[in-house]
């Protein structure tokens, strides 16, 4: 399914980085139009599951690029502006999640799915923590606001989405990849 060389950056990574970014951007934008109801300021972005999936399937560099560019695209489409720290946070989320790539043998196997979800959650923690903490320094927020107002809702919302949707994406990908033969 992939060549397992974690840090390779060739045509495959360029193309899947771009595809992951475009999908992340499209789904972020779509859920801005059809927001999923949630509690408080917790929002659910299915796009995050797509990002973690691309990172798990194609590696950390694809995750980094898809996260950084995808977040920039989503913000550009929705008209939010360009917030480099949240884009970089999304990139880090993909980077950390992508570290699992080399250890995934079978996208259908329960153990591999759990591993991918675990790395995904670690990625969400690192990425959202980076964005929230930089927001503390840039916006002059206190630790409470940065961690409770920004990090916690982002972490909870993204984790729920990844736990539910990532296994479905991985199983579907296993079927597509076996049909395609590569």
């Amino acid at each position, binding site marked *: 399914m992939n060549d397992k060389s974690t840090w390779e*950056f*060739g*045509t495959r*990574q*360029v*193309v*899947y*980085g*771009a*595809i992951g*970014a*475009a*999908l992340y*951007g*499209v*789904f972020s*934008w779509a859920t801005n*139009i*059809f927001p*999923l109801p*949630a509690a408080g*300021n917790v929002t*659910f972005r*299915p796009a995050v*599951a*797509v990002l973690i*999936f691309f990172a798990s399937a194609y590696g950390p560099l694809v995750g980094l*690029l898809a996260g950084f*560019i*995808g977040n*920039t*695209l989503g*913000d*550009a*489409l*929705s*008209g*939010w*502006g*360009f*917030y480099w720290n949240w884009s970089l946070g999304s990139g880090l989320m993909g980077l950390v999640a992508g570290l699992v790539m080399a250890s995934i043998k079978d996208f259908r196997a329960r153990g591999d799915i759990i591993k991918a979800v675990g790395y995904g959650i670690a990625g969400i923690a690192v990425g959202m923590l980076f964005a929230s903490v930089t927001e*503390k*320094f*840039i*916006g*002059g*927020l*206190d630790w*409470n*606001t940065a961690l409770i*107002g920004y990090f916690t809702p982002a972490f909870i919302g993204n984790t*729920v989405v990844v736990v*539910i*949707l990532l296994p*479905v*994406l991985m199983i*579907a*990908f296993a079927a*597509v990849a076996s049909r*395609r033969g590569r």
Partner: protein
Amino acid sequence: MLVTWKYRLRDTFIQRLDPRTRLIFMLSIIFAITIPDIWDYRVILPLFLLALTLYLMAQIAWKDVKRIWMFIAFLVFFIVGLNGLLSGRGGPSSVTDMVSPILFYIPIKIPFTDIGWDVPITVAKLWFSLTQMTRMITMTILALPIPYTIDPNMYGTAFKRMGASDNVSFTMDLAFRFLPTFARDLVITMDAQRARGYEMDKLNGGLAARIRKLAPLIIPVVMQSTVTGEEVIDAMDLRAFGTAPRTWLKELHYQRRDYLMLAFGVTIFIVCCVLKWGFGIGDFLVPDFFTNLFV
């Protein structure tokens, strides 16, 4: 549902600037405020007015940004401003350390208990809250016009010319090109699923069930994209992508106005650093006129 870029060609000074100038200038101002940790209104206010002037020069219609501004207002006033007013934390410690007249107390109670306390709202906290909101809005109005005023086709070229590698820049360029295709795929999939009885507007059940019910929409689009990816890789490999440095169809050249803006941005950054570290100007202070309003 069509994917439409927020970008429109407008004959403005802002749009005539090189995209690199726009990004570097924005970062210069953000760093000018954050690296020397400026909290002095005498520095922040001129920067706010400068950012506001640039924002107005971009000539973005209110109807285009109304929704975004409502969200920003909520975030800045209710989450950041209110928190600053209550706690006075997040900025320099002088906000809570300095002796300042108390305006009133806000009683805060833990729900369903008798535990609570009265939070004093001081003049210093009120001024800090106003300063913090101005600081955030200054940076926001520099970032907000970017998607409205930079041609999406120029991002890849701009990043390349700012020092990113061919591969990274091409990824960015390709992502912008893929986007309308995947948005169209999403619409087609949505219509196809609706024809099969899938009702997106009526996602019933618990939270997990509602997220899971998005799968019929997400899976086909994502899986189709992985197949498309293989075809694109083949096409690019056949054209020997990555074997030699790329040339770019769109060229960027700095003009005189770009050099002036870049020099202006860098000067602001240097001035802020010199003011803070050379002259000790930039720390949080409450102006006398503001204190006199309340005493």
